[in-house]
Each structure stands twice: as C-alpha cells, then as structure tokens.
C-alpha cells in the first residue's frame, strides 16, 4: 500500500534547521487539533465500548441491577448448552457463503456486459444501480416481505404461468425462507458491480489484442486475462462483503424475524434479541465478542489463502 509507505518515509526526518522548527511545532499542534474529532471518537465510541463489552462478557448484567462477575460462565453456556448459538452461527455461515459468491458472480457478469462501449450503457448502469441505492432501506425490506408473501407477486406469477396450484408461503417455509434473504442480497449487487467496472477499465487492451492475435477464444481471454487481472478486486470485494454479510440485521428482522423455526436467525439478530429483548447484556456481549473473533479468523484465512489465488502485477521496486 503506497499510503503506508508514504507515511513511513516521512517519519523521523532529519532535525530541521532553526527557522523551520517553529513551523514544525505549529504543524504538530495543528495535527492534533485536526485529528481530535477522530481521536476522541476512537476512544469514546470504539475503544472504551470494546473494553466495556469485554468486561461485560464475564458478567451477568440486566441494566437495572449492577453487573455481577460470573467468570467464564457465559462462554460455557454459549458453547455447551446454547442451541440457538450454534443454529444462528450455522444460518449466518450459510447466508454469507452463499449470498456473497452469488452476488459477486452476478456483479461481475453485469460489469462485463456494461463495460462494452455500446449505446445506452450509461443509462443501463444507472438502472442496475437503482436496487442498491434503495438497498438497506426499511421500505425495501417491507416490500420484499410482500413480494414473497402468500399474496405476493411471485406466487401470482407462478400461478398465472400454471407452475403452481395454490399460494406458497416462501417466507414461512423452512426450506425457502433463508433464500428470500439471499436473493435480496444478490439483488443489491450495485457497489461490487461499480468496483468491478472500474477494475475492468484498468485492464490494458493490449493484453486482449495479443491474445486475439494468438488465436485465443473469448472464453480463454476471460479465464486467462480478465479473471486473473481482477483477482485483487475480487479479493477486496469478497472480504468486505463477507464481513457485511455476517453483520446482516435490518432486513432479517423485518422480513422473517428469525423464523420459521429459527431458520433465518442470523447472528446479529440473535445478539440483538439477547441484549434488547431478554436484557441479558453480559451474555449478548459475550456473543458479540465471539462473532468478532469468528469474523477475524475468517478474514485472516481469506488473507492467508489469497497468495494462492490473488494475482498482483509485478511492481517496479518501491
């Protein structure tokens, strides 16, 4: 990352000559003034809450009475006796690892379609981005619930095509409920699509020309040039999207609220219930820390494996 090396280089410069020393002191002072908002927030809404949460995870705390230290009991209960913990973890893994690859594949497919210099492409790009603009809103979640509801458009379509006789409860059937959330996630492919588009434009045309001269087919150019050249971006998108997949909450709450039979009980939804419905703040904090560790491990694994499949162009010596 050039940004980091840029910072490193500027550190510990030679001691400046006298006239500049005053400027440097001003620089120091101004530096702290300008980063103050971040520094204060970093302590007040990130570091202190995280430490508090770590402490609470070893306590029993219902907000009204003072927290009581219980040692590892929360973790013991979670790992040994909590069926919903395993269930929600399973659901979340399924959700993230199905929806993210599908979403990225779809985003890449459309980016390839829309990178072609054809008439109306700009308009199409806007059109395909619209679902993502509305993405996280509650209105879309409410609409989705109706779309897949018993009287919704999907049933209406399938019945008018004669594929189904009676209405089917997509949201209430254990086999399909999670899929409605996955389809919603895939539908919001806009930002990875834009990032892929930017990446596709950076692949030098000379590579494709050379491949064409050598007689490569379109499919060969795609698998041998496009995909390898895009791997850094695929990697970036994958990490970001997996993390946000694990944090999915709003839509799950509104559309299925964990049901049927906890088949859509995503992890954050479970944390939320423990914290704000049962008021088991200590237990919920322990759950949140476990999630943080799980996401950390996944990210680390993805980073570790990246050297096998992410292709970086040889850079000039920095």
């Amino acid at each position, binding site marked *: 990352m050039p940004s980091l090396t840029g910072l490193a280089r500027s550190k510990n410069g030679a001691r400046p000559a006298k006239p500049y020393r005053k400027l440097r002191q001003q620089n120091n002072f101004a530096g702290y003034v300008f980063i103050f908002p971040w520094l204060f927030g970093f302590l007040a809404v*990130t570091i*202190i809450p995280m430490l508090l*949460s770590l402490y609470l995870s070893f306590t029993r705390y219902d907000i009204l009475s003072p927290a009581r230290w219980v040692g590892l009991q929360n973790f013991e209960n979670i790992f040994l006796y909590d069926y919903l913990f395993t269930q929600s973890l399973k659901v979340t893994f399924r959700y993230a690892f199905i929806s993210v690859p599908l979403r990225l594949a779809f985003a890449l497919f459309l980016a390839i379609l829309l990178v072609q210099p054809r008439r109306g492409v700009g308009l199409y790009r806007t059109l395909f981005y619209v679902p993502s603009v509305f993405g*996280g809103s509650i209105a879309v979640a409410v609409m989705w619930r109706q779309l897949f509801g018993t009287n919704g*458009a999907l049933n209406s379509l399938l019945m008018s095509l004669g594929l189904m006789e009676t209405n089917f409860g997509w949201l209430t059937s254990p086999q399909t409920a999670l899929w409605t959330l996955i389809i919603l996630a895939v*539908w919001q492919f806009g930002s990875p699509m834009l990032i892929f588009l*930017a990446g596709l434009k950076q692949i030098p045309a000379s590579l494709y020309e050379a491949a064409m001269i050598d007689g490569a087919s379109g499919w060969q150019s795609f698998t041998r040039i496009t995909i390898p050249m895009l791997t850094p971006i695929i990697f970036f998108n994958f990490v970001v999207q997996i993390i*946000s997949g694990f944090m999915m909450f709003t839509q799950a709450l509104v559309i299925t609220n964990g049901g049927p039979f906890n088949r859509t009980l995503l992890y954050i939804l479970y944390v939320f219930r423990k914290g704000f419905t049962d008021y088991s703040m200590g237990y919920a904090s322990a759950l949140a820390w476990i999630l943080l560790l799980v996401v950390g491990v996944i990210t680390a694994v993805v980073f570790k494996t990246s050297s096998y499949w992410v292709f970086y162009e040889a850079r000039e010596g920095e």
Partner: protein
Amino acid sequence: MAVMSRQTKKRMTKLAYHLLVFGLGFLMIYPVLWMVSGAFKTNYEILNESLKLVPNSFSLDNFRRGWQGFGRLTFAHFFRNSFVITTAATAGITLSSAMVAYAFSRLRFPGRQFFFISMMATLMLPAQVVMIPQYIIFRNLGFINTYVPLILPAWFSRAFFVFMIMQFIRGLPKELDEAAIIDGCSFYSVFYRITMPLIKPALITTIIINFYWVWDDFMGPLIYLSRPARFPVSLAIKLFADSTSTTDFGAMFAMSTLSLLPVFLIFLFFNRYLIEGISTSGLKG
C-alpha cells in the same frame, strides 16, 4: 454479399445484447416498480392482482390514509424527524472527516502513523459489535429517546470517508499549501481556504453516501428511540407494517414509496459523485 451478412450479424449481436441487458434490467427494477404501483392500487388489487404493474386507476387515497400516520402523529412529523437527524449527522461527518483527512495527508506530527493504522483497523470493525456497550454508555448518560446517540458519533468522523477524502487530497498539488504557508497562512486557513474548496467533489460524495446511510438507518433508531413522537420515517414504516392484524397494504406501500423519494432524487441528480466515490474508495491505495 459478405459485407452485408457481416453487417446483419453485427446487428443481431447488438439486438441480442440490448434484449438481454434490458430484460435483466427490467427484472431488477421490477420490485421497485411493483412497490410504486402498489402505492396506487386498492387493497383488493394488491391482494388479488398482485403481479400487474399498472393499477386500474391512479388514486391518491393510499397516500392520504398513510400520511395520517398513527394517533396524532402524521408522516409530516416523521419526515421532519428524519431530516433533523440526517442533516445534523451528515454535517458532522463531512466536516470532521475532512479535518481528519487533512491532518493525515498534509500534516506531520508524532504518532501519525500509529493513529492512521488504528483508524484503518476500525474500518474493518463492524458497528454492530459495539452496539451493546454504546447503548449502555448512552443510557447511563441519559440520552435514551434523544437524537444524541444518532448524531454525536457522526461528529467524530468515519474511517471510510476519511480514507476516501485522503485519496482525493493526495491528488492535489502540495505546492498550493506550501505557497500559502510561506505567505504566512496558518494551517487552519489553508484547510479552510484552499483544501476545502478543492475537495468539493469528495465532500459531495461523502454527503450523499452518508445521507443514504443515515436516512436508511434502522438499528440505531430502533435501539435508542421508543417514543413514537421521536421516530424517523424508517421506524414509522416498520410500525405500519406491524401495527394491526389487518395491515393497510396500500397505505404502507404509499409511505414506503414516499420514504424512498428523497433517496431517489439525490441519486438522480448526483449519481456521478456517488458512482465515482464507490469505485475509487474501493480501489486506490
């Protein structure tokens, strides 16, 4: 002949391409159109003729019923609440993120590298992980049922935007700053008079993206607000969807459509900035 057939072939590919892309585009946009059309349909049509997009008659009845809201609280009230929260949070995040970005990209001070790495680490830290302790802190400070927990953290800048603005500042010539400093300008006026005007596109991108996030935010209001008089639009719509045993679907669709209108208008006028912001912040650096 050969020329002709090649031309027809080209035309066929072109046609196939547009059919494919347009078909997919229609499929993608269908749910949105469906919701908008639901805002005009009668409840009977919504339940029995769900698939179709053009209602029998365009009646504004749903909007009238929906706007009434709950009890004495109309949607005018909820929209005002949403605008207050969104404006205050967006102003804060834009100003503070620009300040922090300026410090990290233009000023030298001890600890800068450490702070920068710490900030980038928080980029990976999801807000949901700290929701419980944050709630406890704000509760103990007596800020439940106020907008403070929704607005104040925005004034502490946000790593995502800081990073995006930093990318932008790096592209500006440093000589401008240096010349101003030599002429006796302080760092504060350099920031205010030189950097801020030059990074306007990045600031607009920040404003738009953050507007979306705050306008759509559901978890924050859900946790911190329990009095309906304080609800933003997002919570009010959820209340609509859950309220009674027989939901007024038409009114619900009408208010959902209205709630997306500001988002849509901003997208229509500023989508260039939005698209640039997403594609550059994801790639560079």
